[in-house]
């Protein structure tokens, strides 16, 4: 087995810098939270797009509720022979008033801290300081919505239905109040005005399944083990980054991709292909060997971040 590692070239270094930049972008929305037990958790903030989507879904639901209520009340009023039309009107307005004002509050105070729209988008409200999410915070963040959404809307309508100087006033009002509407895009924590005042933020609802351990699957195939005897040099070629990429690859990529990656690894570590060796078997065993090697190093305090790390 010859020494396979070479000094990193200029292109390698550039590739590494690029990778770090991509990682930084991917973790721009990650926020650290230290629990009272002292463990550090990572919360992922919701993107502004997801929140806008959630808001639109919620309003579609609210409007559907309005339609259903008005339809039901009309039917009942008709059933009563159209006596008391005024009562029906007033009743409908009352219910609409309640739904419009308390829809968001009702759902966000609930156990999931999310409206149906937020749940569909996979986000929820959480307290920014890591403490309890109080009812007051929910109230505050939803009252401020009046200013954020309905003020621009008001100016928009009055721009459409006014003339002369009034139009200009409305346009300036629209621009000014529009600033609040687009505030989530203007700060790094994606806070809207209501979040700022209430001390909340919107995070992605954590969802992740525990999958099988790839190393275990290979451990079962005891007879195959003797075939894959990687030397220390062969296992020293890659670092943690490559290990993680290999893990993702084994979990989700296609057969063709696996074949080509297996070929590249074989070439890199100088591995003679065995007569009945399949690509997947090779990758799995190499993954298990590499992980064992790297984890052992980890226990000794050496963290080999990637293949350029010596």
């Amino acid at each position, binding site marked *: 087995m010859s020494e396979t590692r070479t000094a990193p070239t200029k292109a390698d270094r550039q590739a590494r810098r690029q990778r770090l930049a991509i990682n930084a972008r991917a973790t721009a929305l990650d926020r650290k939270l230290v629990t009272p037990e002292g463990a550090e958790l990572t919360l992922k903030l919701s993107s502004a797009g997801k929140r806008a989507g959630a808001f639109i879904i919620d309003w579609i639901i609210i409007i559907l509720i309005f339609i259903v209520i008005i339809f039901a009340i009309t039917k009942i009023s008709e059933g009563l022979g159209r006596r008391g039309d005024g009562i029906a009107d*007033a009743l409908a307005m009352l219910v609409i008033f309640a739904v419009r004002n308390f829809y968001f509050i009702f759902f966000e105070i609930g156990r999931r801290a999310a409206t149906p729209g937020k749940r569909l988008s996979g986000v929820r409200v959480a307290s920014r300081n890591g403490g309890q999410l109080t009812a007051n915070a929910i109230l505050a963040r939803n009252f401020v919505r009046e200013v954020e959404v309905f003020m621009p809307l008001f100016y928009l309508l009055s721009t459409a239905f006014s003339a002369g100087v009034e139009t200009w006033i409305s346009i300036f009002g629209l621009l000014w109040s529009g600033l609040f509407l687009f505030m989530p895009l203007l700060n790094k924590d994606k806070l809207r005005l209501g979040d700022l005042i209430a001390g909340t933020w919107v995070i992605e609802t954590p969802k992740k399944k525990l999958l099988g351990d790839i*190393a275990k699957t290979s451990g079962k195939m005891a007879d195959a083990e003797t075939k894959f005897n990687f030397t220390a040099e062969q296992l020293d070629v890659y670092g943690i980054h490559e290990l993680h990429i290999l893990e993702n690859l084994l979990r989700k990529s296609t057969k063709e991709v696996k074949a080509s990656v297996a070929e590249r690894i074989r070439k890199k570590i100088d591995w003679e292909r065995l007569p009945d060796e399949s690509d997947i078997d090779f990758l799995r065993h190499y993954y298990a060997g590499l992980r064992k090697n790297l984890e052992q190093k980890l226990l000794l305090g050496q963290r080999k971040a990637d293949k350029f790390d010596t």
Partner: protein
Amino acid sequence: MSELLKSYRFREEREAEWHKLDQIVNKAEKRGVNALSDDDMIALPRLYRQAVSSLTLARSISLDQNVISYLETLCTKSYLFVYGTRTNLMSKMADFFTYGWPNAVRAAWKPTLLSAACLFGSGLLAFILCMIDMEWFWTFNSSIIGERTPDATTAFLESTLYSEETDAEGMLSAFSAQLFSNNSGVALFAFALGFMFGVPTAILVAYNGLLLGAFYALFWSRGLGYELTGWLLIHGVTELFAIVLAGAAGFMIGGGVAFPGQKSRMESAQAAGRSAATIAIGAVVMLFFAALLEGFGRQLINNDEVRYAIAIGTFVLWMGYFYLPRARGDQP
């Protein structure tokens, strides 16, 4: 590779408990805390701490990405649940009415006075200006009040103070129209605009004061002051109190932003914002009562003395509710 990986053994030993925790938290999220059995409740804190320690350990010994991100998810989910809101809506509402709201209002007496000064000060100003020269009326009320202007006859003005229609339909629509009138909007805006150092809040409250003062001057100049007071205050005590409180909530936030003291500006705004929100939702509740009084009370009661009695009664009730000392109270 005759022996299994250490990180795999680590996972195998703890996996069952992770799944158990996952199951409990999912159940609680779907069906509420009450769906949990006693065993679940007892196991929850232990399982949660175990998962957190597993996560810390896994980070230092395991390189299995999936295990670590799963544990992070599990811990975050459990954390949000364990430290999340716990009370249900009913007990929260009971707490709000018994302690939360009156305590918040009582603690905010300074901004309340400021807000009242804005409302009644500007009202007085408009009243005096209009009494000197009724032309001022047009400055304050460009189009809002409709037919009740200095051009109307005294008899017409008087007739607007009493109503003949007393059927349920009329009352109900007056009530709902009142709900949709600008009042609850004004209250929420006064709160929500507070963050700009309270300036828009002051303008909003003062503007309402000006309208009120000009309106009052018009009736006063026709010798209808006594009658108007009854017409206005039967629900006005509640309504104006609500607007004053909403303004106070706005000023609290403004004050929090402008004078943060030891805290950062953002923390200070948050601290003020939370108790101010309590006051603001309370103001909406008050406006609801005001709408009831206006829709039903004022239509049914056309006697000045009874109107006065109700006005004084509501005033005493609100003052007692907010400012009488209480045996126990959690600070909001």
